[in-house]
């Protein structure tokens, strides 16, 4: 039984992992775009972006999942996603990507704004272009500063993927619950914690490694 459950949960965990990786792939760059928007000197860009960040960070991710999945059907009378597993996964992915991009954008913004203005001015008086100053001077310093808060957020994402269960994405929690119905056993649900724990352990090691790699300066 243990073997059977372990293998079954591995299948569920792969969906969890897929959701996690794809969310990062979208949200990491999207967050940078949003952070530039929230720092824009143009009010017509800055205020709407800040409003979106406020809404996304100010409401539960679970509600956002439900809204994105059921919203089109309720509001437009059009079941955009289809009812199958792929449709549900896609809806979940979009909800996660938007939600996490907004959180990442605030981390990026904090990192970028923490770089002393003297770094930009030094680049300028040395005749560097603005893009060169960002890429060659500021970027690595920003990365160094945001690794700790980003690792926090990314570890939270691993666990938040379980929320996708509310729109019936077959991630690991959902997967474990079928054993309650079919075999009347609850330990597989608790056992999922081990998967999260091991995976987050690996991520923690990875972030420690990156932090160490960047500890050569400042």
């Amino acid at each position, binding site marked *: 039984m243990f073997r059977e459950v372990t293998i079954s949960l591995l299948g569920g965990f792969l969906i969890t992992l897929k959701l996690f990786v794809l969310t990062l792939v979208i949200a990491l760059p999207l967050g940078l775009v949003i952070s530039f928007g929230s720092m824009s000197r143009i009010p017509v860009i800055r205020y709407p972006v800040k409003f979106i960040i406020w809404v996304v960070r100010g409401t539960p991710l679970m509600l956002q999942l439900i809204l994105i999945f059921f919203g089109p059907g309720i509001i437009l009378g059009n079941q955009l996603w289809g009812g199958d597993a792929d449709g549900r996964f896609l809806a979940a992915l979009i909800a996660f990507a938007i939600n996490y991009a907004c959180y990442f954008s605030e981390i990026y913004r904090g990192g970028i704004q923490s770089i*002393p203005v*003297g*770094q930009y*001015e*030094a*680049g*300028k*008086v*040395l*005749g*560097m*272009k*603005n893009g*060169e100053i960002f890429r*060659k*001077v500021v970027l*690595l*310093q920003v990365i*160094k500063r945001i690794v700790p808060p980003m690792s926090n957020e990314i570890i939270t994402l691993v666990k938040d993927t379980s929320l996708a269960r509310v729109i019936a994405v077959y991630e690991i929690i959902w997967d474990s619950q079928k054993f309650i119905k079919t075999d009347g056993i609850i330990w597989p649900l608790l056992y999922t914690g081990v998967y999260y724990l091991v995976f987050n352990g690996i991520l923690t090691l990875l972030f420690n490694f990156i932090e160490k790699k960047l500890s*050569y*300066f*400042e």
Partner: protein
Amino acid sequence: MALLEVNNIRKSFGKTEVLSDISFSLEEGEAISIIGSSGSGKTTLLRCLNFLERPDGGTIRVRDEVLFDGSDPKRLSEEEIRRRRLHFGLVFQNFNLFPQYTAIDNVMLAPKLAAREAGKNRDDEIRKQAEELLDTMGLSNRMNNYPGQLSGGQQQRVAIARALALHPDILCFDEPTSALDPELTGEVLRVIRELAENRTTMIIVTHEMSFARDVAERAIFMDGGVIVEQGDAKQVIDHPREERTKQFLASYQK
């Protein structure tokens, strides 16, 4: 014809007038020191010369080329500002070295980018120059250290080498020793003295009065955004004519 001619420069931040009607000139190979209390506009003046602030009016000329003309309403393009500000170099009070680069990489970064922009590979030449500059600064054994591994005095000397690597016509110093522990100021003042002996054209904002007097041919005393007195450095600092200059200098035991 003077190398640098600054005429009637004005600058206000909001309602506060920080510079009013600043005019002075500088000959090639000459060093001029600017003294005055904090808030007198010395730093803003250097920042205007380096295009970090835009003056509200007046003109700045280098070698007969008008770099800034306040009566010209046309806004300069980013490219044009980049080109014009390279007539000046600026050494900051807080060094502002790039922490992720070694001393020599700090010196080489901007020249390398400039060479790449011009479509040339001059890496060997740039490295040789950087080594020579750091050697002149007495840092030949510190080239591969990161700024965080260097003392403040060493960092400031790297910053001077970094500014010199672009061969500015005029090198500006903004209180180069103010952020340093007293025992480290000597090494920085020494290299600036050597630059003066080699006829580097310099504008030095400083609170070190004896240094201001000895290193520069001429001195400017600023107060409340205006030039109160300018002339021969020894005369201005040892025998000031203006009452305000006397008061200011009396607060220093030279």
